[in-house]
């Protein structure tokens, strides 16, 4: 059984089709890089998976349970259960600016899962250490660099113990040095067998860390394969053109 199963996904904004027909699946342990030109619909696709956007048609199943089936949404409780299996990391972090790093991590856990304070604190420290931020547990987000903010945001998502992590251009707001530290954390996550779906412009990450690549273009997945297939022998001219412009 695949962790995420997507079939015939369609989505438009004000009558303009943004996702025309998206089909793919994510298996346990997959690290999938989603690449493609800007405006291809990568973010929209990711946002549909976690119910930040409503689809117009198609099916999304999470661990075998439908979130939406043939365009018809499951009851709210089931939708929450499905999206609860995923964590999401945004381009602009979206940390809670009024809460310390510690509270950013513990607040959702305590409110959503009713975890006790002691236990939440202990888990926060452990999780922050994983992303190399253990020593900044009592910092306020405004005092952190972009790379540090993003690592805290990753830790915050991990606190809820998701089976799948979604990343939407997690390093696009960062300069190259900070990009590396965030990619490092993601690489470590991958090595720990976290299932990941990563929208990215970092071709090195796609090449070296991902086991599969989806090339998205004009609202559909034009081509999919291993990094060797996509980078070595792209089947479509569009893919080759895109990679040609992106390989540094």
């Amino acid at each position: 059984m695949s962790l995420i199963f997507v079939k015939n996904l369609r989505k438009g904004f004000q009558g303009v089709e943004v996702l025309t027909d998206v089909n793919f699946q994510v298996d346990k342990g997959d690290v999938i890089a989603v690449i493609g030109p800007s405006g291809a619909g990568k973010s929209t696709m990711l946002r549909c998976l976690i119910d930040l956007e409503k689809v117009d048609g198609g099916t999304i199943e999470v661990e075998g349970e439908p979130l939406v089936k043939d365009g018809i949404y499951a009851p709210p409780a089931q939708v929450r259960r499905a999206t609860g299996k995923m964590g999401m990391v945004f381009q602009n972090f979206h940390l809670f600016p009024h809460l310390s790093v510690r509270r950013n991590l513990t607040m959702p856990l305590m409110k959503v899962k009713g975890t006790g304070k002691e236990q939440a604190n202990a888990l926060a420290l452990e999780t922050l250490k994983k992303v190399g931020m253990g020593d900044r547990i009592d910092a306020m987000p405004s005092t952190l660099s972009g790379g540090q903010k993003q690592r805290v945001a990753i830790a915050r998502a991990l606190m809820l113990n998701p089976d799948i992590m979604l990343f939407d251009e997690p390093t696009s707001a960062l300069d190259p040095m900070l990009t590396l530290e965030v990619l490092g954390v993601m690489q470590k996550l991958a090595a720990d067998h976290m299932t990941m779906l990563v929208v990215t412009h970092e071709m090195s990450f796609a090449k070296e860390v991902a086991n599969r690549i989806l090339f998205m273009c004009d609202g559909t997945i034009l081509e999919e394969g291993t990094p060797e297939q996509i980078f070595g022998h792209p089947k479509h001219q569009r893919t080759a053109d895109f990679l040609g412009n992106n390989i540094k």
Partner: protein
Amino acid sequence: MTTSEILATTQALLQGLGTVITLFVVVMVASLPLGFLLTMLARCRIAPIRWLVNAYIYIMRGTPLMLQLFFIYYGLPFVNDFFKMALRSAMVCALLGFSLNYAAYFAEIFRGGLLSVDKGQYEACQVLGLNRVQTTLYAVLPQMFRVALPSITNESITLVKDTALVFSISIMEVLYYAKAAVSRTGSILPYAIAFLIYLALNSLLQLFFNWLEKKTAY
């Protein structure tokens, strides 16, 4: 004026201070939550509720507070016996009028604060599994409040000064006692003392809000 006269005058004026403080405290305690409620209702899914709330805010902000006080104190008792009974006390009318009026201003302030909360905050809450109430309580409200704080400070300083308006519905507060003392003694010194009393009050208030702003800064 001799020193003892000044002291006596100050003492007389301070009698009105209790009224000012009561008005201030009660109106703040009533109008802040009421204002927030209005802000929330102005975002309600049911359109007629939104219209009503917006009309209310429009009217309250668009007409003089003194006129509103007159309307409540002198006007409403003519409507029926219930109002006649309920609004016998000028102080009750003042508290009611001020609270209703300030709630409208606070509603506008909160609305601005709410607009300043980034859309990404709501999305982060949703993907973390927080429900609407939790999102509002733990993410939106604290940020909204922080943005609104300087405007709340402004409004409360205005409120202290506005309390002098209740003079017009014959409530005895600092201004009343000052005027009485001026006509009794023929000196304008009581006015100067009234100045100082209001200034002192607002200085305290400013200090408090400065402290609160520091404490809630992030």
